[in-house]
């Protein structure tokens, strides 16, 4: 686990780190360079948590079993809290728009846009 990710941000989600969260985190690290050094790991983690949360929930595909859905919900909530504490208003709104775009497409049973691309675009806002 990279030292810059505060341990408390992974509490209850430790098992996800080796199950895709660390890979997603590393991928988003490339998109957070323009932010303050302190905020960079938190924003990369926020994006990774939201990506993994959406995957766990099964948004746009087969619904996750209830217990897995709840872990997905916690990922989204924690990602959202990290954004609330560390991101500008524009970035927070861009993330919310990305989730709205994916969930409304899923509800309409049309193809859901790529989570990573949408969140990378949100980080560039």
């Amino acid at each position: 686990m990279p030292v810059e990710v505060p341990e408390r941000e992974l509490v209850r989600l430790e098992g996800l780190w080796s199950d895709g969260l660390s890979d997603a985190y590393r991928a988003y690290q490339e998109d957070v360079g323009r932010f303050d050094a302190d905020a960079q790991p938190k924003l990369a983690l926020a994006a990774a948590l939201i990506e993994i949360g959406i995957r766990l929930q099964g948004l746009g595909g087969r619904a996750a079993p209830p217990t897995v859905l709840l872990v997905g919900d916690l990922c989204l909530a924690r990602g959202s809290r990290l954004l609330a504490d560390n991101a500008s208003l524009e970035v927070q709104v861009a993330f919310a728009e990305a989730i709205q775009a994916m969930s409304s497409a899923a509800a309409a049973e049309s193809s859901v846009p790529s989570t990573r691309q949408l969140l990378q675009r949100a980080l560039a806002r």
Partner: protein
Amino acid sequence: MIRARLRFDTKHATEFVDLTDRLRQEIRRAGLRTGRVYLQSLHTTLGLAVNENEPLLLRDFQDLLERIAPQGAGYHHDDFARRVAVPLDEPENGHAHCRQLLLTSASTLLVEDGDLVLGRWQSIFAVELDGPRHREVAVQLDGDFVRPSREASEALVELELGRQLLVDPEPVAAPMRRLVEAGGKRLRPKLVQLTSAIGPRSEPLRAAALAAAVELLHNATLIHDDYVDESTHRRGRPTVAAAEGPERAIAVGDYYFAKATRMIAEIGNRDVTSAIAEALEAVCASQIDDVALRGAYPGDRDSYLRVVRGKTASLFAAACASGALLSGATPEVVAALRRYGELLGTAFQMVDDMVDFSPSSGKPVGLDIRQRVLSLPLIYAAEDREVGPEVRELLAGTLGDREVGRVTELVTSSDALARVRSEANALVEEAVRELEAIELDGLRPVLVGLARSAVDRNA
């Protein structure tokens, strides 16, 4: 303090734009009764003046300005060859800047009895000196505002909820609309609205937006909960998961989770955003604990309180704190209201558990037992010396209609419900005591009444 901008287009090079009626509208709209209106021109060639709106007199003023600072009278400012970084569209307007020097760029006006304090012949002008142009005057209103009635405030939230659902895509909006229109107690938005009137910056429209967002967030969590609990009905209607499938329920919940967090972020108060985000995280973490504890059903009081504080009380606490933060209340007031909300939320959930045993609640009796939802009456009944052994034995097995009926009988025959009622009442009184040491600008009786009515119910 309320902020506004007066925007207008001028048509002439020199023009007196009478702002009096527009300012009166702003004062009425804001509900300012006694206080001040601060005006500030946002341009260097737009002045402000208070004088008589008589056309010939205005002509005299214009003539005076032209005599004192005639156009094209060799102003240094108009000698572009000597200036640096001159924009391409820079006009020769040295005269306009000099004329503005004779006026004022900021002005304070008094308000009494909900109207501007003006002499019989006084009007407020923005004076265009280099038109025609688009212009803006910044306005701030400060003082004592009329507090909208509770009915009006609640109507504002309903309007805001309706407005938000109107613009959303139908596949997500329709299920949420059904849930919102089915009712609900709207306690969380009420708490936001009440506490948002406590501090010095009472802004009913922003409070209504925050209250509506909190209600949407709460409903989004309910939609996912209903899937997790396999609930078929909520508020007398089929749940989203039951009616449209779990895939749709997950999408609708996610959409309104995101929409609500966006609405809250757009309010532009970082402390408010953080307070709600922290509460939402606590709600989600406690949902996991809640489901995990069903393996040791019915659990114990400490585990119950830990789950309820996260699952229910945290959003009550955040609703109270965020309203107070929005209104600019002091940290002491915010902290006391947060504690009030947490205690009230815990008591509210205890009474909600009791409703499961009330035949007059409108819900099927024993639904929580059937779904193995954490419930304090059940915990107390399971601890009871007389009925406890049978309750525990029944809960350890398969819960069919007969077993659920028998558990209900045992709970109601024990003193479990009385114990829970007494505990909920004690928490409400503790919540009320939290309000004693803080200044609430006349809202204490309303908050006390709301707390007591939240636990004095059987539905």
